[in-house]
């Protein structure tokens, strides 16, 4: 038909995947129906490259596929036992770094971290929990912020800056002390112009940014990941917002 012929290709796990100049390996893969696990990537925003779940082996070298532009003749290994085992370890580390109590969390069933854990066959957190004290901020009338569950993917930071034009969120601190911060003198969400209708209020892959009083309203069985794997959901034409 009328679509421009894409003659350039890479191979991912032996499959030919066409790409356009400037397209990342991740986006080329998604367009071709090849799933590469990811958490901090969302095609609606600039890539960030922080979670490292999307690492693939390109001609024998590991690279983050969400930031790496595709180039002709790249031979990419993605769905291999080694890479998936590394990915599982990364997810396990996220679980022990924060305080993720899935059974009581209202994001359960809609959470990408949980869904990624299922996808990667994570059966236990494996590592020792850090039990780090993390703050909650309930000062905003419509939004509850629970940093226990933040994985520092910066999707909210990007959404607030790029879409809402507000810069409500930022990241501060280093290493294990890194935290999501709120851009107000008081540090409280209630003292910003953040609104429940903002894009940033709906992009969090975990249960960190929550619209108040909405928890558990969707019955079990109708939640995003009740019947679909994260690989299916993240391959859908337009990734839905996560609420």
């Amino acid at each position, binding site marked *: 038909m009328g679509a421009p012929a894409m003659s350039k290709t890479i191979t991912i796990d032996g499959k030919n995947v066409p790409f356009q100049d400037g397209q990342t390996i991740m986006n080329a893969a998604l367009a071709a129906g090849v799933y590469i696990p990811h958490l901090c990537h969302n095609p609606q925003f600039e890539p960030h490259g922080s979670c490292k779940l999307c690492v693939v082996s390109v001609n024998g070298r590991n690279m983050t596929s969400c930031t790496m532009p595709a180039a002709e003749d790249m031979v990419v290994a993605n769905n291999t036992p080694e890479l998936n085992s590394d990915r599982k370890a990364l997810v396990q580390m996220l679980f022990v770094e924060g305080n993720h109590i899935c*059974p*009581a969390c209202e994001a359960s069933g809609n959470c990408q971290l949980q869904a990624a854990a299922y996808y990667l066959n994570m059966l236990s957190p494996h590592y020792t929990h850090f039990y780090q004290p993390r703050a*909650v901020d*309930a000062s905003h009338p419509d939004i509850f912020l629970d940093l226990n569950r933040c994985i520092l993917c910066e999707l909210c930071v990007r959404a607030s800056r790029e879409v809402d034009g507000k810069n409500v969120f930022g990241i501060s601190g280093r290493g294990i002390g890194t935290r999501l911060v709120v851009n107000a003198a008081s540090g409280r969400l209630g003292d910003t112009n953040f609104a429940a209708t903002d894009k940033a209020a709906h992009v969090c892959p975990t249960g960190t940014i*929550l619209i108040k009083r909405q928890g558990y309203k969707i019955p*079990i*069985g109708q939640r995003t990941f009740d019947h679909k794997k994260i690989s299916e959901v993240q391959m859908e034409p337009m990734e839905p917002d996560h609420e």
Partner: protein
Amino acid sequence: MTFELETAAHPENLKRIVIEPVTRVEGHGKVTLLLDEDNRVHQARFHIVEFRGFEKFVQGRPFWEVPVLVQRLCGICPVSHNLAACKAMDMIIGATVPVAADKLRRLMHMGQILQSHALHFFHLSAPDLLFGFDAAVGKRNIAGLAAAYPDIARQGVALRRYGQEVIRLTSGKRVHGTGVIPGGMNKNLSLDERDYLLKEIEQIIAWSQAAVELIKVIYSERPDFHNSFGFYRSSFMSLVRSDGALDLYHGGLRARDEHGQTIFDHVDYTHYWDYIHEEVKSWSYMKFPFIRARGREQGWYRVGPLARINNCDFIPTRLAEAERKIFKEFGGGSATQATLAYHWARMIEMLHAAEAIQELLHDPDLQSDDLVSSGERQLRGVGVIEAPRGTLIHHYRINEDEQIVRANLIVSTTHNNQAMNEAVRQVALQYLDGQQITEGLLNHIEVAIRAFDPCLSCATHALGKMPLEVELLDAAGTLIQRLIKDSDGRHRT
């Protein structure tokens, strides 16, 4: 009364026996007995190491999360905590729960009553009741029951499973579902789900009737023994419907004294503290609630199936009401006080739950989509239900940011704290006093505790495998003798 056995006058010269089951859940209990050289009982106490961290743990959490969070409190009756907390949250969001949601919650609750009572009776109590309290340990469990009475054991399992199915279909999951939300429910019962449950309900009712018959036969074979075992008189407290009917989901609080005289009636539970206080005793982590009007010494009471069947004026389902009348007649027309009558009352309630489920399933409201409401927000919420084990009180205060700032829970087992201690002392006096202590005799104490179906017993006995350690120490704390029962029922020293 045996208050004199609560604290021995001269503990220094007595030897100590500790019955300490090690449990899989947060709560665990132990019994300590102080005996003199002639094995005369001078002190008997039942302690529960309770999950006290909870009230702190919910602080700062958003109120709508709490009903799901509290299900983790207890592995045995999560639905009860879920419902009680949600009733408190209904009040916080100023909701009048729509009729359909109210009925769906009742259905879920009846499923919970059915499964919990079936578990307790068939798995935990029937082996003691059928084989005798000092029968071989290896026999006194569900496996022994299945070998000797295969039909009864099978029906027990089926009743429990049916209750769990009711819970699954109303809450969305077999355990720790999320169907109940502040202000109502997030799902109704589809016609398919209803038909699936209707298929078996006749059979479930028939088996529940058979269970009532069974306990009646057991009881009336040795009425004197069953009546006198751990006998004492007490007040009873429970919720009743505005017309005096048995109502396990909602109502006003009613308390009657040991002579059946009303202490209070149709009390609005959102002001429970005007009627009930909690006393702290140095030797137990669990508080001792008492009825204010009667004071610390006299104010203790019993809750649970026995309290409810004694307290209500009638049961609003036909078969269970007929059984209540027989039960009442047995008690000579007034409240039955026997500790072991808990089992009988429990089975009448199980029959009521089965009948109530059938009635609800035929109600077209269960397919309604009008499931949630809300109104003007309050900063305080109290929710009370009759959980399988008795009155359950959840009380919360939130701040303007909608976070929990204070929580107070009075669980069924806490209401029964003094009563269970009383039962332990009675049995200690009746059966252990002056005797050489054996495992069989110690099991008598457990039988008395188990009649109340306290959470800890339920959890540890779930598979009829309570690990138990009994230590005899002399006054100086030196170990004289130790008896260990492993979870496979084997003994070692």
